[in-house]
């Protein structure tokens, strides 16, 4: 199973209702492509770190998506966003592989990581000793 994250930034002059309808439209496209929307977050108006199209703010929308693998409609959704000039930025990221890797590391780490930390603590003591000699 694949998971994706889709974030897009809308022109702040677009009203909140229109942002909702726009989001609805994209969600429909995604579900029509056989994927499922797991989370939907509206981050609201946020200040942009740098101006985009001379705008200093943007409305952020976040969608968490899962798909059973195979074809999704995400390329089409991206295409639509590219053509819509009310969308300042969009980003689609596939997250399942990285999350899986992170989970594996978490499982593997406990014993090893603690031992390593004890080591570095010992080294630190040693460093202090040498300093005193000076």
């Amino acid at each position: 199973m694949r998971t994706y994250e889709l974030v897009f930034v809308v022109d702040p002059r677009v009203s909140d209702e229109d942002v909702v309808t726009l989001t609805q439209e994209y969600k429909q496209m995604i579900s029509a492509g056989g994927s499922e929307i797991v989370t939907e977050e509206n981050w609201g108006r946020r200040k942009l770190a740098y101006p985009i199209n001379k705008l200093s703010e943007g409305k952020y929308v976040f969608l968490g998506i899962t798909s059973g693998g195979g074809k999704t409609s995400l390329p089409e959704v991206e295409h639509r966003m590219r053509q819509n000039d009310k969308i300042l930025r969009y980003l689609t990221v596939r997250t399942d592989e990285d999350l899986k890797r992170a989970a594996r590391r978490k499982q593997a780490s406990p014993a090893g990581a603690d031992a390593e930390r004890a080591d570095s603590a010992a080294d630190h003591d040693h460093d202090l000793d040498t300093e005193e000699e000076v």
Partner: protein
Amino acid sequence: MGRPRKVFFRRRKVCKFCADKIDYIDYKDVKLLQQFIPERSKILPRRISGTCATHQRPLQQAIKRARHLALIPFTTD
């Protein structure tokens, strides 16, 4: 009689992500990423931050994603 050898005391740098056990570096976590972008908004090199290679790579990726979404700046003027 030799010259007294200078002994430098340098604090040992530890990878923040190993120490805090952060396994997945999220591009949405602006607060975390900001610790690795100093004044000029450049990505802090490993040699300064002490981040291990395993974590610097995803960190770099996360910063670039966050930049694209204007969550963090490319430069400060």
